[in-house]
């Protein structure tokens, strides 16, 4: 066995992140590591790469016990890691990045020619045709990822850990990446693949190990583990009930009567083409389109993050002013942004502080939300949304992605908004939290809240929406409702050519 973890245990304050986990990796194998948020995947990887030290258990590489205490030590031992966010220097050239820290020298001076030659050697067999002298930052994420892999393989060469490598890649790029991974596997590397895209896992991996709540649940060959059982292992609950609730009654036609909100001719030059939208009480509007089609931009206009150049927004009482997020919040809007880390959470503050933040900002600094009320809110939402934490005072930055998203949601639910915009609410979140968040959206609308969901996962969007709006080139190109909401229709609307649009318009 190339790599074997035996009874690996890691405890954080009051929480067992890994509980006697066994894991084996053979050379020439791609082994998927799956689990919900907080299952212990990242902790396991961090123990392997020397970020954390294990509390108990052993890590055997080629049968020898190792204790990496830093990432460079892990690399020297033969364990390299590539993360979703590429950890390279975009302002250096490709060649410099590849040889960084190991530059070929001549008389103590870096020799650019030897550097380039060495970089070219390193990239051989990766099918990359790129200019080694250009800044790495000028290439796509996919290319950067491959460069990072080439570097990791060169420096370590035994075990390669890919942590959500495909999250920001498109289909073609994923195929490119997979080809490289397969070639590395055939060269005898052991590869650990972490992803929440099950299709990709099945397409690429030889074996699958599932973690849940810090324990190893199962390790099995991927061709003998079918998808339903896999998801059951990951969620640890029966799927039948869940599927039942998916088949929910969808409103066949838009509700009659006074709309909750009317957007009329709202647009911003060079940003979003003017659009009209009437939002009904208690409906879920799905917004679909490719990256760059103007989905997030539309949400930013609605929430006052960018000012609109044209159009009006009104409710039953009259026109609304939406010059900044504070105006939007005052009008009863909420917005859970796509990029949780930079736009959503306040990482160093506690869960409690994060939940009360919007409410506190609305009340003004003089009228502090009473401490008892803060505690009640935090306890309430931790329970209702099933936020996995050792307590309300834990810093949000220490939670896993799905739980961070739930905290951001709790912040808005505490405000009891009438119109909630969720931008990619399930991105970077695995199956369990996924279903919980979709379930939550339904509960909210049942009580009259209108929700706009932006998502690039069509299945999810179709399952949850009463109406679907499709955007292309920053304008609305289709609106589907009732039984028209099918995968086929949405895909056609996204893909339709320009002439087609003119005909239908």
């Amino acid at each position, binding site marked *: 066995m190339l790599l074997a973890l035996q009874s690996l245990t890691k405890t954080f304050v009051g929480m067992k992140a890994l509980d006697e986990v066994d894991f084996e990796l053979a050379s020439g194998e791609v082994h998927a590591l799956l689990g919900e948020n907080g299952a212990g995947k990242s902790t396991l990887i961090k123990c392997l790469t020397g970020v954390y030290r294990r509390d108990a258990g052993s890590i055997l590489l080629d049968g020898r016990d190792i204790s990496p205490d830093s990432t460079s030590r892990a690399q020297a031992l033969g364990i390299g890691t590539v993360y979703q966010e590429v950890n390279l220097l975009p302002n250096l050239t490709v060649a410099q990045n590849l040889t960084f820290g190991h530059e070929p020298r001549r008389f103590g001076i870096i020799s650019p020619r030897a550097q380039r030659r060495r970089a070219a050697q390193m990239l051989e067999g990766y099918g990359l045709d790129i200019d080694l002298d250009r800044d790495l930052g000028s290439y796509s994420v996919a290319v950067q990822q491959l460069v990072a892999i080439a570097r990791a393989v060169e420096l370590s060469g035994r075990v390669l850990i890919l942590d959500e490598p495909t999250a920001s890649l498109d289909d073609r790029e994923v195929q490119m990446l997979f080809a490289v991974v397969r070639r590395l596997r055939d060269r005898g590397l052991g590869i650990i693949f972490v992803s929440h895209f099950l299709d990709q896992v099945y397409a690429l991996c030889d074996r699958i190990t599932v973690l849940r709540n810090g324990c190893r649940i199962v390790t099995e060959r991927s061709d003998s583990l079918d998808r339903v059982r896999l998801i059951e292992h990951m969620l640890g609950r029966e799927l039948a009930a869940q599927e039942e609730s998916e088949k929910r009654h969808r409103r066949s036609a838009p509700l009659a009567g006074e709309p909750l909100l009317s957007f009329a001719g709202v647009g911003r030059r060079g940003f979003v083409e003017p659009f009209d939208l009437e939002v009904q009480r208690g409906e879920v509007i799905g917004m679909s389109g490719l990256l760059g089609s103007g989905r997030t931009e539309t949400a930013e206009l609605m*929430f006052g993050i960018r000012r609109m150049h044209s159009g009006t927004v009104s409710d039953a009482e009259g026109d609304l002013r939406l010059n900044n997020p504070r105006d939007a919040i005052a009008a009863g809007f909420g917005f859970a942004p796509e990029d949780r880390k930079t736009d959503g959470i*306040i990482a160093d*503050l506690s869960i409690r502080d994060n939940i009360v933040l919007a409410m506190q*900002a609305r009340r*003004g600094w003089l009228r502090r939300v009473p401490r008892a009320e803060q505690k009640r809110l935090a306890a309430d939402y931790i329970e209702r949304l099933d936020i996995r934490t050792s307590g309300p005072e834990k810093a949000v930055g220490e939670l896993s992605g799905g739980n961070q998203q739930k905290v951001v949601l709790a912040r808005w639910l505490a405000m009891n908004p009438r119109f909630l915009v969720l931008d990619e609410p399930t991105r970077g979140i695995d199956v369990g939290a996924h279903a919980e968040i979709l379930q939550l959206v339904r509960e909210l609308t049942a009580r009259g809240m209108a929700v706009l969901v932006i998502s690039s996962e069509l299945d999810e969007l179709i399952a949850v929406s009463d109406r679907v709006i499709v955007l292309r080139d920053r304008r609305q190109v289709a609106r589907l409702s009732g039984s028209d909401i099918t995968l086929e229709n949405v895909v056609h609307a996204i893909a339709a050519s320009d002439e087609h649009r003119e005909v239908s318009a």
Partner: protein
Amino acid sequence: MPAAVKRILPQLITLLGVMVLVSLVFPDFLSIDYSDGRLVGPVIDVLKRGAPVALLAVGMTLVVATGGIDLSVGTLMAITGAVAAAAIVAGHGLVLAIVLALAAGLCAGGFSGFLVAVVGIQPIVATLILMISGRGIAQLITEGRILTFNMPGFAFLGSGTLLGVPVPVWIWLAVTALAIVIVRRTALGLLIESVGINRRASALAGVNARVILIAVYMASGLCAALAGIITTADIRGADANNAGLWLELDAILATVLGGNSLRGGRFSISAAVIGALIIQTINTGILLAGFPSEYNLVIKAVLVILILVVQSPSLAGDLKRLGSQLSRRAPRRSAKAAPQRSDR
């Protein structure tokens, strides 16, 4: 242990350590006499002389909590002192002199805050503007001289005594207590921290980040004005060139000694004020110990480095790990020993 005490414990221990150190080289350090209705002694002297930096540290902590820094506070002491002195020389009363000085501090802080929050200039650059040009403004006010005055009421703020304790001590104690009450009893502290950690996310949650940013620089200006008033009152004159010279650096140091991250976020005013006392104890201690004056800055530097290293979280983590490794070896014996004891 309450969280508030736990937070300032390292600073308290450090202060105690420095006091013990000073007592070793100057045994009378802790002696306090009572004469002429006032307490006298090195410790009282530390409390009094530490007043300007303690006041600056209060404001600086708020600015640092937003991820900013205020280099202008030393200069603001000169400007506000000059404003007060000029008002007195021009024949205005005590109250007006104080009000004008405080207003000058608020305006200057508002100016820096505007540059940071609205124009978007980096705090270190925005406040550097006033740090440099402000000395010139102070010189214009004093017309290049040391502006002396004679007004017992104003001088009382710098060298007077109330209930045996110097007035500047009362002032910094009151300001510190007031500031803590304001930030912790209202939501201001939470909003400042959230803007300091993630301004964009805070703005998206509806926090008015601009107003918060301007407010902390104004608070810092106000604290600088109080420090300027005390200094000017103490020497009964405004010295545009030397009042508050380099004190902005001591204030930043006090904030850092107080365990506040310069990257912003969670902050403790009381810890920063204790940091100011640590600095002043070192200053006074070096003087009392009778070292040749050219050693002063070097000794101070060595002590500060030592303190920062000891307080650093990564070192604390290393020590903890070392401790747990040692105790992991030890318990085998004690584990056996324990049940025996319980059997008896």
